[in-house]
Structure formats: structure tokens, C-alpha cells
């Protein structure tokens, strides 16, 4: 959509011109608006005369450094515009040192921009696009971004495509007659959410049949697990002030739109999460990943209510998610990850019903890196992908099994299998290679010289295989962080810049507490890495980071490796058996198929054990 062209009078009421006004003029001119810049030091009445003289002025932008008497001068200027009958014709904006929205309101201006304002923010205001004071205007230029937009998912390596098709066919055939408690709960949850409160009794009667004792007790006796509590009314009430809150924000980026920067939140308490979210949004996070506790992933069934606990990760309940969702800024992308537990399909249903933007699914990682039984998670994963397709919810296919020692080519083979399955089921997958100093590279030395080449090789390899969105995660720079905040922020910023240089769609970044395992992440540590990342983006701009020729060599090796693994899996005739047998990462790599949910599969219709 092209914004309507406006006419803007720029007024340096200061005795000297300020640079800011000139920069704003340039930005406005670039967008095709018409501007008139007055000489500095004019009297307010002269400015009013100019408004009378110029045809159809839409905006008057006054710049002035504030002081005690200056406030009065500006207020009188506004008044003069009013009583001269021009106030309803023009929008009055003030900018300068010490200007705050409160002062702008006091002086009668329609908006106020203080130090740190970017020209882009002023342009956004003039074009009537959503913006917040001091930032995010450019981030909001196109509204929320669809990370999968513009990707064809066309394979560039036909051999790989053929093998993936065979494997996906096998998975669908194998899964056809199977179900699981997780699959059944997702179905019941969907029905309950769509039939309303009346249906609750009926829902619970069946739902609790598929839940673990801990969950059953919480519903039937209101008995919560250890260290878990309901949020109090006054805690929820406190949050009211942040509803539809538009605080002062940091400018997110310079020029280049991509990548969207995601952070993970999950302090254990939704209230603290919301405060962290507000901090992160303001400091330039484009997206948020809901990080749930690992314990919850090993429990059949989800709890209910506004729940907080003292562990890492915030409990997945309908109420918790809805509460958090209510406090997100309009342009914030929100991912509710479903990928690794016994509640995978049900989590996608919650995410879809609540209008999340993204979810996260990968059965290979869940088996090899997150302790899930391969058979169970494959059934649940297929169902989760179906739900994601139902809600048109894109999801990333994460490859954190690399951290357990699985080499990149094996992890990528697993990722591509899930992505292909998703495409078959109508889903929109996003590939999530890790930018990390994995056990593989520590052993084989791919990062002996630099951290750039091997990470770049991963991106190049995937780009050569398929035209699909890429979202390095999660977080970037895994195993390069230390507990020192400067080191940690710097490594994050550099990995982020590499990702940006490689043109990926999104990145997930850690806080500077990434390596600290002693307790919860502090808000200030989130500010550290967001600030560092944006400073690095500012530094590199359109200048890129140049990998050495090794990157391309390694990308070829990766493609060959992936192809070989896919061939083995296709030949084995069973994706699930391949996971058990270690074809996608096995004991020699340090990865073992998980046991959570073993022997829980049910036969479809008859409801019998498989």
C-alpha cells in the first residue's frame, strides 16, 4: 500500500538548525512527501503566517530544545495556530532534546519525539502507520511479517526430494492406523474450545482418561504439583496497566528488514514473562518464543489456570497462554513451541486457537535430543503437523540434537524429513539450523579458525537443497557463550550479524545469561543482547560478513552427507526404526532414542494398545 503524500512544514524554532530536522526532511523527501524547511529562529507568528501562505500544509514539525520558558513559547505557538483557525487543518508535532510525549501533551502538540528518534519513526507517524515513541516504526512498516512469504519450497536437489518423498510416504502409511493419548487429547481439546464452557464436564470426563495422575489430581482436587501456585488477583490486576500499552521503544533496525529477532521467554511465571516481554519488545525484539518447562513435556495432559512455578519454563495452560497473548504488541510475532513432549498436538491446538503466529515441531530432535520415544513422538508429531496445517500455522523444524553430538548432516536429514512431511500435509515449515559450536565441530575442528565458515556452510547447503525459509536458532551461538555479559552479548551480536549477512528470515537470540545455569534470566541480560545485536546490525548495515572458500566446500560435504543419510533411511523402510537404530544420530554420536511415552500408542478406532 502506498501512503498518501503529505505536505510538511519543518520549523527549527531554535536559533540554529538542527541536524535531526534535516535528516527527517531527507527521509520524508525519499518517501515522496513534500517538505518545506524554514530558516532557523523564526518567531511563532511568522510560522503561522507561513502556514497561511503555503497551500494545504498537513503537518508542522517543530524542533526546539526545551527549557522553562521554551515550553511556554511552544504552547503559545500551538495556541496561535488554534485561534488563527488552522488547528483542525494541521497536525502539530514537536521534537527535540527533553521532549517526551507527556510534554507534547502539556503543550498541546499531537505528538512529541525525543532524543533517539529515527527519521523512520517520524515518517511512520506521518504516514499514519503504527509506531511507538522512540522506535519500532520501521519494524512495523509492513506489520507482522510472515516468515514463509515468498518461498516456493521447490527442491533444487531432485535426488534428495525423491528420497524424502519415499520416507514421508512410509511415515504416513505407518501412522495411518495409530493414535495416542496425546492425539486424543488434542482432539478433545479442540472440541471443548469450540463448544464452550457447557461442554466442560463432558470434556474432562474423557480428557482425564488420557492424563497422568498429577494432572488428574489438579483438575479433580485442585491439587497442584510441588512449587506450583495460582497467580493471585492482585498480580493479575497489576498487569492491567500494560494492557494495550505503548511504551517508549528502541529503534529496531537500520535499513534491512530481515532477519526478525526472536527471544525466548519462560521465567516460570506468566506475570514476570509479561514484564520481560514488554522489556524485550521495547528493546527491539520482533518475536517471542514461549519456552515451556521440560517436566511438562514428560507429563500426559496439560494443567489449567494462571499458574506460576519456580522452575525454568512457563507452564503451558490455556489461561497462561491467553494471558500472555493479551499483552503482546500488535506486531510481535509469537511462537508457542510444541516440538518435544507428550502434549505436542494439543499444544498446537492451543496455539492455533489463541492465534499464535508460529509453532515448533521436530520428531527427530524430540527423539534424539529431548528424550521422546520415537514411535510415540512420530504419531504425535504427524498429528501436530496436521493441526498446524489446519490453523495455517507455520512452524520451525528445530535441530537441537546437534547439541547432543549429532553431526549437522544427520540433524539436517531429520529436519528435511519433517519439513517434507509438513509440505505433504499442507503445512508451512521453516528450517532451523543451529549456529553453534557443537560437539561435532569441537571434535572435527570446523571452528578451529573461525565461527563463520561452518555456520555459513549450513545455510548455503540448505539453500542449495530447497527454496525454504531459514531461521537459525535457537538460540544462535550455542556453546559459544560464557557467563560474562560482554562476551556473551558480543558473541550473540556477531552470530546475529552473520545470520543477517546470509539473508535468513529470522534468528533466535539468547540473553547474556545464556551460559549461567544457577538461576532465572534477568531482564537486564535480555537488554544486553538485544542492544548488542542491534548495535551490530547498525555497524554492518548492508556490508556483509565474508566467509572463506571453506564454507562452500563444507556446504558440499553437508549436502553429500545429508543425501547419504536420507538414502539409508529410505532404504531402511522405516523412519521410526531409523530413529531407534541411530541412522539420524546414534550412540556413536552421543545421541540415544528417548523413552518418554514408550508403549503408549493406541490403535485407531478400537482404542486398543498397539
Amino acid at each position, binding site marked *: 500500500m502506498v501512503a498518501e503524500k503529505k505536505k510538511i512544514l519543518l520549523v527549527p524554532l531554535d536559533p540554529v538548525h538542527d541536524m535531526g530536522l534535516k535528516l527527517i526532511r531527507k527521509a520524508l523527501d525519499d518517501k515522496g512527501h513534500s517538505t518545506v524547511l524554514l530558516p532557523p529562529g523564526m518567531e511563532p507568528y511568522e510560522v503561522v503566517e507561513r502556514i497561511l501562505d503555503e497551500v494545504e500544509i498537513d503537518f508542522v514539525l517543530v524542533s526546539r530544545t526545551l527549557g522553562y520558558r521554551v515550553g511556554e513559547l511552544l504552547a503559545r505557538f500551538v495556541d496561535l495556530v488554534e485561534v488563527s483557525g488552522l488547528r483542525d487543518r494541521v497536525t502539530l508535532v514537536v521534537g527535540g532534546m527533553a521532549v*517526551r510525549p507527556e510534554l507534547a501533551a502539556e503543550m498541546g502538540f499531537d505528538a512529541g519525539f525525543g532524543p533517539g528518534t529515527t527519521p523512520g519513526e517520524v515518517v511512520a507517524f506521518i504516514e499514519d502507520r503504527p509506531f511507538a515513541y*522512540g522506535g519500532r516504526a520501521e519494524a512495523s512498516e509492513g506489520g507482522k511479517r510472515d516468515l514463509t512469504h515468498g518461498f516456493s519450497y521447490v527442491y533444487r536437489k531432485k535426488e534428495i526430494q525423491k528420497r524424502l518423498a519415499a520416507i514421508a510416504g512410509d511415515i504416513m502409511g505407518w501412522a495411518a492406523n495409530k493414535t495416542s493419548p496425546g492425539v486424543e487429547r488434542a482432539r478433545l481439546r479442540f472440541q471443548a474450545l469450540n463448544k464452550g464452557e457447557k461442554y466442560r464436564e463432558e470434556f474432562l470426563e474423557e480428557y482425564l482418561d488420557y492424563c497422568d495422575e498429577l494432572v488428574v489430581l489438579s483438575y479433580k482436587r485442585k491439587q497442584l504439583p510441588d512449587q506450583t501456585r495460582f497467580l493471585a488477583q492482585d498480580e493479575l490486576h497489576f498487569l492491567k496497566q500494560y494492557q494495550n500499552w505503548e*511504551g517508549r*521503544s528502541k529503534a529496531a533496525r537500520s535499513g534491512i528488514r530481515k532477519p526478525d529477532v526472536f527471544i525466548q521467554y519462560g521465567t516460570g511465571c506468566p506475570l514476570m514473562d509479561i*514484564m520481560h516481554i514488554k*522489556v524485550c519488545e521495547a*528493546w527491539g525484539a520482533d518475536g517471542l518464543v514461549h519456552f515451556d518447562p521440560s517436566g511438562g513435556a514428560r507429563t500426559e495432559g496439560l494443567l489449567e489456570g494462571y499458574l506460576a512455578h519456580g522452575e525454568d519454563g512457563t507452564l503451558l495452560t490455556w489461561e497462561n497462554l491467553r494471558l500472555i497473548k493479551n499483552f503482546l504488541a500488535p506486531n510481535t510475532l509469537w511462537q508457542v513451541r510444541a516440538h518435544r513432549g507428550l502434549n505436542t498436538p494439543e499444544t498446537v491446538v492451543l496455539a492455533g486457537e489463541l492465534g499464535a503466529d508460529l509453532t515448533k515441531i521436530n520428531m527427530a530432535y524430540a527423539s534424539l535430543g529431548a528424550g521422546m520415544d520415537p514411535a510415540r513422538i512420530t504419531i504425535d508429531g504427524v498429528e501436530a503437523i496436521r493441526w498446524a496445517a489446519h490453523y495455517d500455522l507455520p512452524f520451525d523444524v528445530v535441530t537441537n540434537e546437534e547439541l547432543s553430538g549429532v553431526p549437522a548432516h544427520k540433524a539436517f536429514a531429520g529436519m528435511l524429513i519433517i519439513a517434507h512431511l509438513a509440505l505433504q500435509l499442507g503445512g508451512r515449515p521453516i528450517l532451523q539450523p543451529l549456529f553453534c559450536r557443537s560437539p561435532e565441530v569441537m571434535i572435527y575442528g570446523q571452528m578451529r579458525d573461525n565461527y563463520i565458515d561452518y555456520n555459513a556452510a549450513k545455510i548455503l547447503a540448505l539453500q542449495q537443497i530447497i527454496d525454504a525459509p531459514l531461521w537459525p536458532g535457537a538460540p544462535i551461538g550455542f556453546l559459544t557463550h560464557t557467563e560474562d555479559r560482554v562476551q556473551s552479548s558480543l558473541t550473540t551480536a556477531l552470530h546475529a550479524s552473520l545470520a543477517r549477512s546470509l539473508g535468513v528470515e529470522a534468528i533466535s537470540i539468547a540473553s547474556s545469561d545464556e551460559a549461567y545455569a544457577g538461576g532465572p534470566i534477568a531482564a537486564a541480560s535480555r537488554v544486553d543482547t538485544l542492544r548488542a545485536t542491534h548495535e551490530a546490525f547498525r555497524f554492518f548495515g548492508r556490508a556483509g560478513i565474508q566467509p572463506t572458500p571453506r564454507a562452500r566446500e563444507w556446504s558440499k560435504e553437508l549436502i553429500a552427507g545429508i543425501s547419504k543419510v536420507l538414502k539409508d533411511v529410505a532404504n531402511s523402510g522405516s523412519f521410526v526404526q531409523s530413529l531407534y537404530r541411530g541412522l539420524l544420530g546414534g550412540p556413536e554420536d552421543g545421541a540415544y532414542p528417548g523413552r518418554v511415552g514408550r508403549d503408549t500408542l493406541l490403535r485407531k478406532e478400537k482404542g486398543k494398545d498397539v
Partner: protein
Amino acid sequence: MQYAERILDAIDMETFILARDEGEAKGFMGRFLADLGFTDHDIVFLEQVGPGVRVRARAYIHRPGGSYGWLAEGDDNGG
């Protein structure tokens, strides 16, 4: 203050304060440092973004040219 004596020159405290503006945050942090018993302190950095203010506050224990508590290190066995 025997532990503080071991601080080479100054101690920084960085945090995020829920405050209406930088002035309020500055006040909070200054009072907090005073409550902790720091007499020689400064607010190095303030930036209001989001629901509060990023703050870096500093308490000087030993200013250059002053008398350095850590010179007497051996006396109290380091505290």
C-alpha cells in the same frame, strides 16, 4: 567494609528498574546505593526504554590518589 576494601577501584551495579522516567530511576538507584552504605556513588548510565529504565550505577571504593584499602591486604587476611 573489609570485603569492599578488596575492590580495586569501583563497583558497578547494572539493572532494569520499573520507573516512570529516568529521573525517577536515578532517584531510586541513588537512594538504593546510599541504603547499601555507599557514600561516593554516581549514576553512570540511564536509558528509558520499555516499562522502565536500564541503569548502571557505580560506587567508588578507591578513587585514584586516595588511600587504597587493599594495600593493607595482609592485615585482615583478606576478609
